[in-house]
């Protein structure tokens, strides 16, 4: 059920490293100090959301994206003048799971195809796999994105590492 803990399907590893730099943990941290300059970015990622920049969004200024695909200007989120539309007191990943139409769609597609969803343990958390009647398998998250057959490992990986 690791999807339930995902918050945003994309990168942000440098932001994680910026937290690392702030913590200043030994020699490892020192090498990553270059990534710690933007407190808005750090605040976004450490809150469990996705920081990104895009020329077509927000005039190219950094944004903080939330699980429902809404977003705020990163500085506005940092200043508290803008925030996610989440129920209070619920960790973002949980809210994503319970409120996500994509999660329901994935389950629906798998089950209506005669498949079964299996949660499989890995050392990095469980992954959901849809097992079709002919024995073929597909990552459940890839199904929801219409990308069954594609490798979805990277989305998993980045989401895990960008999550709270």
């Amino acid at each position, binding site marked *: *059920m*690791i999807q*339930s*803990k995902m918050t945003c399907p994309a*990168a942000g*590893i440098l932001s*994680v*490293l910026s*937290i*690392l730099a702030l*913590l200043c*943990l*030994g*020699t*490892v941290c020192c*090498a*990553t100090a270059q*990534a710690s300059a933007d407190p808005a970015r750090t605040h976004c*990622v450490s*809150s*469990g959301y996705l920081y990104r920049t895009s020329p077509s969004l927000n005039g190219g200024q950094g944004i903080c994206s939330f699980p429902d695909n809404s977003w705020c200007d990163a500085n506005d989120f940092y200043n508290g003048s803008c925030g996610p539309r*989440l*129920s*209070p*007191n*619920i*960790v*973002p*990943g*949980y*809210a994503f*799971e*319970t*409120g996500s139409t994509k999660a329901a769609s994935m389950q629906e597609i798998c089950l209506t195809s005669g498949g079964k969803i*299996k*949660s*499989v*343990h*890995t*050392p*990095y*958390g*469980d*992954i959901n*796999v849809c*097992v079709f009647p002919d024995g073929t*398998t*597909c*990552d459940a998250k890839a199904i929801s994105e219409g990308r069954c057959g594609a*490798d979805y*490992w*990277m*989305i*998993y*990986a*980045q989401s*895990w*590492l960008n*999550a*709270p």
Partner: protein
Amino acid sequence: MKNFSAIIALAFLLLLSTAFADDVSIDQLKQTMIKSADEVASYDYSRMAECDIVYRNESLQDIFEAAKATDGKVNLTAKSGWWSHQLKDTGTREVLLWQGYLINGTEYWKEGDNWTQFILNDSQAVLDDYNDLPGQVELLNYSDITITGSEEIDGEDCYRLTAEPIVLIQKAILGTQIFASYLASPFPLPDELDVADFNFENTSIIENSDVSVTAWVSKNDSLLKRIKIDSSLTLDPAILNIAEQNFTIQSILHETTDYTDLGQSVQIELPSEAYNSSYRMQGADWRWAVFGLVEP
């Protein structure tokens, strides 16, 4: 001559029956493992995970070492669960503590001395997360299994199995291990890895890695008693098929889980101080991500 032919025929039949029995036993074993795990309503488990990552280039050699010890209890009848992690950063000697409780449809986390309460919309899904055993059995179910011997675990006679997970699962493990390796890296994450169209197939990652599983399953009731997962990975620009200055990252992860008191009475009690917990939406310490995310 007649006797010789009979002996040959008998030997052939024995060989055939043995081979057939092996095929059947593995298939049957998978089925009975799943059934047994589904029928277990309570158990304890303990897990030890170790992570070593070595970074090298022409001018430096860094190492990150950490270990995570986990204890857990599950009581599906009472719809409750508990896990406790202790993460030790070997380099800094810092120790992080993290506990999770699921009681009466509410989840509580204790990080250090701080309690956090989560009100859940779907507590059954969270209970499924706490229920550790089925996911491990499914890992074996979606692996190519060989029975390699017999050993005793806690005085119980067990099959010793070696397993190779299907490629989808291997990639899920290795993909995350790549990014987990970069968490403590003195080398910046390459741009090629920071875009979603990085193609695993165009790399030599599989050839330069190993994901292996060893499991011990009771001969008596087919319950999983112990499972060990080893994953090793070597990265450099050639393996990743990217244009970068030369470097090497070697990452090794070992995880061993023991299941005990299967089907026995398991009590999970929430400490009284948890009821004074605050609500919070902060992130966790980054080092937990070396072993995955926010879960055991």
